[in-house]
């Protein structure tokens, strides 16, 4: 489904170029040479917008306030209307002031509702969003009925058109972007602590409320100046989507801020570019689609948190566990024969694993692929042989299992017949360090709760170096026998 979005965005691009095949390169050249005033303004606006949306969006995404931008962008509508009414014309500065006042009022109301009633945060966000917007629509309706109201251009506030940006508006977007960058650089620590641990921020004596308010003000400014370029609904997209993409790619806040701004700028430029190519296509939605494409890519392919890489990691983990279980079964079979003989009869192994011969053969093939085992036919019977590495690994898994069982019975006071399932899981994940600590804690035990021997780490290594003198690990006996 996520691929669908990607597909949509790319077919979109294809369509636009099809439409104007003849002069598409010329168009591209015109765009990148930035000869046109319109292109320069739109591009500059998009870049500034990408920076401030990426920076501030990162903070609201990690604060789980992603829909705050959505709320603000709708709640400023009555402010836009009043700004228009006060100035008597479409004056960017009056509209900016009006919208900021409405944005601040909205912020105050969200917090006040949360503080004084039992109403949850999401509902209070929705209330300010829809309530203010409704009032805004009533005012807009009246403005359109005024003799001067028809050219108010308020519909731009809903869909946005970067190409229609005036120079003043671009300077305002730029001003806000600079303010956002400066504030984030100056108060990075304060914003960071306030975002993740409010209690800690207070204990440090930081006025968390002040910085919170500062952040909200910056956010309100960004939303207000972005409205003209991308429209009300899509401002929140520019805040959330680049930041969420960055959130999937890194665990560090400073890198997230940088990545989110880069993605914001990238989406802005791509949006402006495709909008320019497609002539009548609105800029805002194209910016958002570019941002969503970036998000889809990092959702799927982020090295650490991506869907595909996590799936592959899980697959290889499952493979390792399966191989370790095979090794363990081989150990068990050899143990039941008193470690006599080199190889393990595959038939014994199959009955030990409760599997058919075919299943066991498939298992052994997988183990063989990792290079620790060999399968040979001797006198009509098939045997599996482990090389020293494989034997070491098998002993280690069994040791992990038995140590853990002993730990649970001795230290955690489990019943001996309750510990097996737990140990089955943990045997695959115990590290060397933990094993050493367990051995020390249990005073280097020789037997597990069921009376079976525990192969100890030191013995294993010693015997293996001895066994490596020339031949295979044939003569290798359990050291503590």
């Amino acid at each position, binding site marked *: *489904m*996520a691929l669908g*979005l990607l597909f949509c965005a790319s077919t979109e691009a294809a*369509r636009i170029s099809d439409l104007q095949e003849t002069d598409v390169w010329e168009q591209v050249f015109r765009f990148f040479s930035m000869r046109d005033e319109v292109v320069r303004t739109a591009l500059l606006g998009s870049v500034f917008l990408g920076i401030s949306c990426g920076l501030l969006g990162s903070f609201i*995404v990690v604060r*789980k*306030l*992603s*829909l705050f931008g*959505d709320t603000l962008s*709708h709640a400023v509508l009555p402010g836009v209307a009043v700004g228009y009414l006060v100035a*008597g014309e479409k004056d960017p500065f009056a509209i900016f002031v009006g919208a900021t006042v409405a944005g601040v009022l909205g912020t105050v109301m969200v917090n006040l*509702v949360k503080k*004084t*009633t*039992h*109403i*949850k945060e*999401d*509902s209070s*966000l*929705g*209330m300010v*969003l*829809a*309530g203010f*917007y*409704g*009032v805004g*629509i*009533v005012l807009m*309706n*009246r403005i359109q*009925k*005024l*003799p*001067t109201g028809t050219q108010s251009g308020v519909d731009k506030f809903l*869909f946005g058109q970067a190409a229609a940006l005036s120079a003043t508006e671009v300077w305002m977007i730029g001003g806000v972007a600079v303010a956002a960058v400066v504030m984030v650089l100056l108060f990075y620590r304060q914003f960071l602590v306030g975002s993740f641990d409010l209690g800690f921020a207070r204990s440090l004596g930081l006025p968390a409320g002040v910085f919170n308010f500062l952040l909200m003000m910056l956010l309100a400014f960004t939303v207000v100046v972005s409205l003209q370029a991308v429209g009300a*609904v*899509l401002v*929140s*997209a520019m*805040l*959330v*989507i680049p*930041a*969420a993409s960055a959130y*999937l790619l890194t665990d560090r806040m400073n890198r997230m801020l940088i990545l989110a701004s880069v993605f914001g700028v990238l989406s802005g430029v791509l949006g402006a570019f495709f909008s320019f190519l497609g002539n*009548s*296509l*609105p800029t*805002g*939605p*194209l910016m*958002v*689609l570019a941002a*969503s494409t970036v998000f889809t890519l990092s*959702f799927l392919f982020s090295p650490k*948190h991506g*869907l595909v890489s996590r799936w592959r990691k899980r697959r290889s983990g499952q493979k390792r566990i399966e191989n370790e279980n095979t090794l363990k079964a081989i150990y068990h079979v050899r143990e039941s024969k008193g470690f006599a003989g080199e190889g393990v009869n595959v038939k014994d192994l199959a009955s030990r694993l409760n599997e058919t011969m075919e299943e066991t053969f498939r298992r052994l093939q997988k183990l063989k692929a990792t290079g620790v085992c060999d399968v040979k036919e001797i006198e009509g019977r098939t045997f599996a042989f482990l090389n020293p590495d494989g034997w070491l690994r098998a002993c280690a898994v069994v040791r992990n299992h038995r140590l853990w069982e002993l730990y649970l019975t001795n230290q955690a006071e489990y019943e001996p017949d309750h510990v097996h399932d737990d140990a089955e899981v943990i045997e695959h994940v115990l590290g060397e360090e933990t094993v050493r600590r367990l051995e020390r804690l249990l005073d280097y035990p020789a037997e597990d709760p069921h009376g079976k021997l525990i192969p100890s780490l030191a013995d294993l290594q010693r015997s293996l170096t001895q066994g490596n003198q020339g031949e295979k690990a044939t003569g290798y006996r359990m050291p503590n026998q």
Partner: protein
Amino acid sequence: MSIWSQLIPEFSFEQVFVEPWTDFLDPFIWIFLMGFFVTAACGFLGTFIVWRRMALVGDAISHSVLPGLVIAFLVSQSRDTLPMFLGAVGAGVLTTGLIEVIHQKSRIKTDAALGIVFTTLFAIGVVLVSIYGENVDLDTDCVLYGEIEHVTLEPLSSVFGLFEAPGSVLRMGVVSLLVVGLVILFYRPLVVSSFDPGLARSMGMNPAVVHHALMSLLAIVVVSSFEAVGAVLVIAMLIFPGTTASLLSDRLPVILGITLVIALLGSLLGMHFALWLDISTAGAISTVIFGMFLLAWALAPRRGLLWRAFR
């Protein structure tokens, strides 16, 4: 200053309050009924939606309906109700599905997932509209503000020969009856699973089924209301009645009753308000119910700001 004097037109009691119920009963009764049905259905269902912290899912659905409508139109080449409805409900269900996928398969939290999904779908919708603009004939004003007034232009269709009403009013009436009926019928599972999913599970109910059923019902209600009130104001209808009522009472049956009263008062006052100021009825209704919330917030017994200040 002249701009301000022109802002509020002259008030005539006769024209605003009397004529809709006498000379012009025919158009205005349908506007009123449509407003009432929308507000009642949204408010009734919204009470549960708000509780379950899904208030903004309604917002998401109402925006992603747009591409659903456009694609349904492009596929079916008609503006018939059925394909439009299917496209919109499909888009709504897709929205909730995508939100869940992103939330479950990555570290993105639900709120961000919501913000990503609905804005992307909305953007796709806007791009589709601007590419196929000439053929789609989708009124962007309608998407944003809704046009309750359009019901007056519809031909009347008769119901079993008993009475006549515009088709969309009938449809909305059926949807609100469906909502009220389903909520009453499944009252217990709905309440228990909203407050205590663990208890619901131990009582043999399946909270996941309740969740998906509620989501589907939400999609149907939002989509049916969409035409009348537009993408954004649906949220007002979903959130305000329930939250206002919950400031006034603690008992769920009473709260549900109050939401219906709010719907009635809101659509009635909204209609007159819109008539007086010559504005969109949907905007007027949401402003009125917003005002009702503010009143309840300030003056409600025990919970209100005033009461708390003087306690």
